[in-house]
């Protein structure tokens, strides 16, 4: 069987084509497989855990395909990149449908308040948080290589993670208050924004992930 360089976890939600196309774009020589087979996730050298849609549905679909254990194992064993709901699902619980997550990390997923959110000019801020916002890098990480501090990435989400362990935080965005937009631990990196839709900066982050050897 052909070696799987990167497995993109498919649990039947949203547009995985964008993620796989972007990975193929930055790593044309690698075998990128979109899969819902736990065995393939187990065999792959790297795992990307993307996400779109509502968290309760995502968790349900993940479980209905028997992928929970394979994903949790991958978070502990090999280069792992979570994206959007793929970041949120790593935590214990979300306010979205009061859904339990995978509990890889301690912490909650909360909703933006929507009321009384304004920018510095006094303009009303909308929910979902949709568009290009700046990412502060509080510390260095191989996945931030060749990406400027405060570079803009594309977001579309109404919920954000609040990790109990502050040491996890490796990216911060203001909307209007600071929230955690990236976490890192050992072989794992996960982001709230969509690198696959963030033009040059996003492709650079994916390139960094593909070459990352934690």
């Amino acid at each position: 069987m052909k070696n799987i360089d990167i497995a993109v976890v498919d649990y039947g939600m949203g547009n995985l084509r964008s993620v796989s196309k972007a990975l193929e774009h930055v790593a044309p020589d690698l075998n990128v497989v979109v899969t819902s087979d736990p065995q393939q996730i187990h065999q792959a050298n790297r795992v990307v855990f993307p996400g779109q849609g509502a968290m309760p549905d995502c968790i349900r679909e993940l479980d209905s395909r028997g992928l929970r254990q394979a994903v949790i194992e991958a978070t502990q064993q090999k280069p792992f990149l979570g994206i959007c709901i793929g970041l949120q699902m790593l935590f214990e619980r979300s306010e979205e449908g009061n859904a339990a997550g995978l509990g890889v990390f301690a912490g909650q997923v909360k909703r933006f308040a929507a009321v009384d959110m304004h920018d510095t000019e006094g303009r009303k801020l909308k929910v979902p948080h949709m568009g290009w916002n700046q990412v502060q890098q509080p510390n260095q990480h191989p996945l931030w290589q060749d990406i400027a501090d405060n570079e803009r990435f594309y977001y579309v989400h109404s919920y954000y993670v609040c990790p109990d362990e502050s040491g996890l935080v490796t990216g911060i965005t203001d909307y209007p208050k600071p929230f955690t937009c990236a976490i890192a631990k050992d072989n794992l990196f996960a982001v709230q924004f969509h690198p696959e839709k963030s033009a040059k900066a996003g492709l650079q982050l994916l390139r960094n992930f593909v070459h990352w050897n934690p």
Partner: protein
Amino acid sequence: MGLAKRIIPCLDVTNGRVVKGVNFLELRDAGDPVEIAQRYNDQGADELTFLDITASSDDRDLILHIIEEVASQVFIPLTVGGGVRQVEDVRRLLNAGADKVSINTTAVLNPQVVQDAASRFGSQCIVVAIDAKKVDNQPFEWEVFTHGGRKATGLDAVKWAQHMVSLGAGELLVTSMDRDGTKIGFNNPLNRAISDAVDVPLIASGGVGNLQHLVDGVTLGGADAVLAASIFHYGEYTVQQAKTYMQQHGLEVR
């Protein structure tokens, strides 16, 4: 420092080509969709919108191929609209590489589609497009029109916007039919009324003739994103020039 105001070039697509009309009529050819998408991406466009304005359903599947091709080369968000009638159409467009799907006439004829699509795929990918026109014969100011602007609905555009958000629309694309193609600027009072009435982002559309109109769309109209077609298609301005202008006028851009 914060969220940037988005500039969204809009590509009206029919028979596999990008076209541009005036007041929804008189179509002119503006080029190949993939080439144009690539050019706008290179200029720093924040997002691209494709509207399938194909009159006959025979050519409808062409847009899927175009989206597939664009999505494998251009890594920014893509919105696709036009002819979306059922949840299955939404799924096909998302699978082809669209990040968001815009629903217009179907939202009026069958609002359940908006609700079902939002609950299945998430509000983040459901845009409701509202074509509105100023009217004198109603107890409200702006009326919703469907079928590419040909049919009046009797619906108040502001109330309709709120209803669509309550069903799960994650964003609104508001086009002023009075302004579309006229180059005299967005209908800012219309956009302001809707933007203030909902929590989701609003994309202003219809009427851009110069770069000040983009600034006004944000500052006067309360838009979170501005959409334009002809000023970019015919090379009057580049997306980069638009961003520089908006930045010089105090707006945050990427």
